[in-house]
Each structure stands twice: as C-alpha cells, then as structure tokens.
C-alpha cells in the first residue's frame, strides 16, 4: 500500500513537468537552383560562374552582386504569388542577361504549435530566355523544410 502511495507521488511530480513549445525549424523554405554546363563529353557537370549578378524582378534584394565562384543560389519564393522571375546578368557582358520565370503553387503546412505554419511550394513550370542559358529544368518540384540537394538546374552555354 505504501508503495502505491509512493508511485502516486512520483507520477504527480512527473505530471508537474510541463514542456514549453519551442521551435528549432528553419523559418522559411528555400528553392535550390544549381548551375551546370555540358562538358566535352556532352555530360552535365556543375559549373561555377564568375562576375554574376542574380536578383528577383519583384524585389530590391540582390542575391549576388558581381560575385565570382557561384555554383548555386537558394531562393525564397513569395507566398502570396504564383510566379516570379529571376534575372542572371554577367558583368563582363551586361547586355547578355537572361530571365528565368518560375511558376509555383504555395500551401500552408503545419509544423508544430511552437513553430506554427510555414509555406511549402510546388514548382509547376519553368522557362527562360537563352542568351547565357541553354536549358532550364525542374529536378525536384517539392520545396519543403527538408532542403533538397537541387530543385532547379540551369544549364549554361
């Protein structure tokens, strides 16, 4: 009987420990865009670009401003939109810039009470001009908090 009462007191103390909701998830998801080109064997290989400026047309933020050795960019897509355009400009030939248009769908995804909700995206369509860029393709359409190795590949000439 005494052991039952001791067990009760132990459970009481356990119940008194309340875990607060806290969040360790990243705050917004990113779309990973990798740069590639075709080598002499016509095989796709990663590419580092020099003197590149990358920005979105609907934001004043510059992802890269005349930076060298860039092989990818991680974009934040706008949740209350379904289309954004990304501009690539090489400072060596500023008249040869390309615009990549990305179409997507956004949905609110519940993470936890502590982290709340976050927007996830599904890439639906991709197109570009072709001054610097040979081809664009969606490699992984789902953009979630698990950062994919690649969502979009851009193959440069």
């Amino acid at each position, binding site marked *: *009987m005494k052991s*039952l009462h001791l*067990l*009760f007191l132990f*459970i*009481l103390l*356990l*119940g008194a420990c*309340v*875990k607060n*909701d806290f*969040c360790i998830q990243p*705050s*917004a998801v990113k779309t990973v865009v990798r740069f590639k080109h075709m080598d002499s064997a016509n095989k796709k290989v990663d590419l580092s670009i020099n003197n590149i400026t990358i920005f979105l047309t609907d*934001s004043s*933020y510059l992802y890269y401003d005349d930076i060298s050795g860039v092989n990818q960019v991680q974009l*934040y897509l*706008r*949740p209350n939109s379904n289309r954004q355009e990304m501009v690539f400009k090489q400072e060596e030939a500023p008249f040869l810039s390309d615009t990549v248009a990305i179409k997507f769908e956004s949905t*609110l995804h*519940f993470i936890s*009470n*502590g*982290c*709340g*909700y*976050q*927007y996830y995206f599904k890439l639906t369509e991709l197109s570009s001009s072709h001054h610097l860029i040979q081809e664009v393709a969606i490699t992984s359409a789902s953009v979630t908090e698990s950062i994919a190795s690649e969502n979009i590949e851009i193959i440069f000439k």
Partner: protein
Amino acid sequence: MAQADSAKNVSRPTLKRFDYVRMGFDASKLIASALSKEYSTIELQLDGTYTKKMNVVAEGGWANAKTNTASVSFKTSSAFLRFGFDNYFFNPEFLGDKDNAFIGLRLGGARQNKTEATAHIIDPFYGSRDSLITKNAGTVFWIELTAGFRMEVMKNIFLGWNIRGKTFINPKKIEELTPSYLAGYGNASKQPAFDYNLYVLYGFGRR
C-alpha cells in the same frame, strides 16, 4: 458444533450487479482549473459494482483551453467520455467494506471544437504575416491504464486517487493545432501522457 452447522447454513445475500453505486467529481481538476490561466475543466465519475471484485466505471466531463505560442493562438472546447472497469485487489474485511486498491482499464473519447486560429508566419525575406486558419472539430480516442485507491472516510462518503497512463488510438486527428488541454486526456501534445485524479464520491445502494 451445532452453531458451526447453523453458520454454514446461513445464506449470504447474492451480489447483484450495480447493487452499490458511487458518483462524484475530481477535486484536483477543480483546483488546477482555478490556478491555471490556460484551461478549465470538470471531471465526474460514476461506478457500480459488477462482481465482488470488479466495478464498471463511466467518467465524463468537459474542458475549455487557450493555446498561445509565439506562432499560433486558438481556443478549444472539448467534452469527453470514458468507460471501463476497475479490478479490486483485496477481499472485503467485513460486510460492506469498500476500502480497496484497484487496477483498471479505460477506453476514452473526446470531441473537440477549435476556434479560428491565428498563425504568425515568419518570413525573413518578404516580411512576416498573420494568417487565419479555419475552425474545425474532430473526435479522438485513447486507451488508458489506471490504478488507485478508494477509502470510505464517513458513511457512504469516499475519497480516492487514480493515476493514469494513456495513449491515443488515432493521434493524427490531434496532430494539427494540438490543444494545450483536451477534456479527459490532459495535455494533448504528450503521447503517452500521465495524469492523476483526486476523487470525492458519494455512494448509495445495498452493500
């Protein structure tokens, strides 16, 4: 010898189901509700004799809760029912003795209604914003193992305690916007969860 023979021949009254019934409330939940800013709840219990060592139990109640974190805020109201049995350990020491320890099993279910929730969505690039999540309702079930003790402190007045370990059967129903307090279960973000009760009961019927 004649007295022993006559004692053997005295027929003991047969126990009928629900001969003795107890009803009461959980005092600890009333105290916790008064002290908490996040929830208020009431839990009631009804039990009746089924066999000499087993009682059938029904419990019910309701709760209101507020959940506020840095990212979401909403209110819930819920009502629950639990059914099960308590198996008593000891034989009565005398006729009408109801003091006993027990172990029991319950199946519980709660219906919860959530108000429209406000979600604060953090976006370092385009600016954080608030979004409204539509209200919804749902029913969730759980099983629990319980143990406890009942003691008759005055004629037909009982005090007792229970400890409970419980786990959801359909936890997906409660995954999104988990209430800080679900009637009958407690903190719904805990799986499994542990809980306790302190009952005050009144009994009536034939012992």
